[in-house]
């Protein structure tokens, strides 16, 4: 079975986005998106785990029987997360000090189990790895957009502390959007996450509808021209 990588990429990032379409992974999403930087950090860590779990699960997909697949998948994912946690702590300590807080949260990310079940257990190794990467990218994008929205409204800054995550070369990313801003606490707290997410999902639906309607009009005009 050949995999259409282009379609797969579009699915992961837009049409079948983990958050916007599958409505998965909302727990870590709402927990960390107080700032865009935290969102980015969580996104990067999730990409690593998604790719590794997609790869591992697709390797074992023909051995695991359907009856025990869920415990096996959970076991594999938990093992990967723990190993990522230990490895980062030992050899990427500076990064770990920033991201370490988020790594254990990845286990609670049902999107990873969801992709294992829906994709990696049925597709080839390369396709599953690619799917993990694209789903992870889509998730990261969502986290950063939601984080940026909440950070700007909630604290008036954008990418605060980005230098801690990416190194001093990226300190240019740290911006104060609204100076002397007293903050809008609601958006920093989880309820603000729900509200912002609601607006983002509605926005995506509107955009999709608008694009869909345009395509429809185009096809109708084409039809009319053809018959004329």
């Amino acid at each position, binding site marked *: 079975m050949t995999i259409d990588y282009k379609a797969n990429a579009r699915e992961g990032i837009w049409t079948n986005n983990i958050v916007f379409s599958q409505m998965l992974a909302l727990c870590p999403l709402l*927990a*960390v998106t*107080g*700032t865009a930087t*935290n969102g980015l950090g969580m996104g990067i860590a999730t990409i690593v785990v998604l790719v590794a779990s997609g790869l591992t699960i697709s390797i*074992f997909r023909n*051995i*695991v*029987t359907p*009856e*025990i697949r869920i*415990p*096996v998948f959970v*076991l*594999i994912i*938990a*093992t990967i997360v*723990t*190993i990522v946690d*230990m*490895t980062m*702590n*030992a*050899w990427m*300590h500076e990064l770990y000090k920033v991201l370490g*807080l*988020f790594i254990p949260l990845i286990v609670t990310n049902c999107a990873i189990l969801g992709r294992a079940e829906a994709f990696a257990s049925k597709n080839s190794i390369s396709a599953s790895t690619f799917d993990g990467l694209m789903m992870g990218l889509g998730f990261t994008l969502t986290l950063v957009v939601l984080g940026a929205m909440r950070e700007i409204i909630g604290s008036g800054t954008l990418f605060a*502390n980005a230098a*801690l995550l990416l190194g001093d070369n990226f300190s240019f990313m740290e911006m104060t959007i609204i100076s002397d801003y007293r*903050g809008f*606490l609601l958006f*920093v*707290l989880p309820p603000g996450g729900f509200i912002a997410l609601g607006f983002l999902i509605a926005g995506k639906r509107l955009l999709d509808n608008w694009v869909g309607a345009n395509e429809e009009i185009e096809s109708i005009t084409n039809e009319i021209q053809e018959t004329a």
Partner: protein
Amino acid sequence: MSKKSTDKITKFRKSVIFQAILLGLFTLGASSMLGTGDLQTRDDIKLRAEEDLKASIGQVVSDKLHDNDLLKNTLAIDGADGKAITIYQATKAGTVTALAYSVDGHGYGGKFKIIMAVTPKGKILGVRILSHAETPGLGDKIEIEKDKWILDFNGLSMGAPPAAQWRVKKDGGQFDQFSGATITPRAVVKAVKAGLDFFENQKSKLLTPITPIMTKEGAES
């Protein structure tokens, strides 16, 4: 392969025994992966923790204050909760100049660990957070990298301000809370106060110069 033997295999794959063995094998594989990972990283993680400890002690006890190796000049005294507290004694030319020790506290996200240093007179030289599980973006302003809040403790001691003022502003004290997070700063203030109480109670023991422990592994306990 004959049809009969394929049938047999399919049947065997469906049996409980096979499922149990397979699950067992996966668990075994995962455990050995984790075991190997732990063995490979354990020493490095310990080293990193030691480096972190050294760095954090360095933040609260400046190098000018001592001429000894703090990680080797340690003593353990039981704290108020009965758990042993490790004290790092800073000495210069044989006299005690500062004491650094860590205190545990309970915040919004569970246990956190702070390190604090005091002068022999009980004045705070500095407080830093060693580890915590507070909410990212809210409670993590207790970290020096994120906010200057923790510096508010510098120079304070038991009595200055008076004990009743060792609270966050919301509770009638003198310390700021963060917008959206009161529990975290409240817990840190409480932990620092407990650390000062510990110093006052154990003053005599703490201020006696100790002979450095000379073991190969350095100070561990």
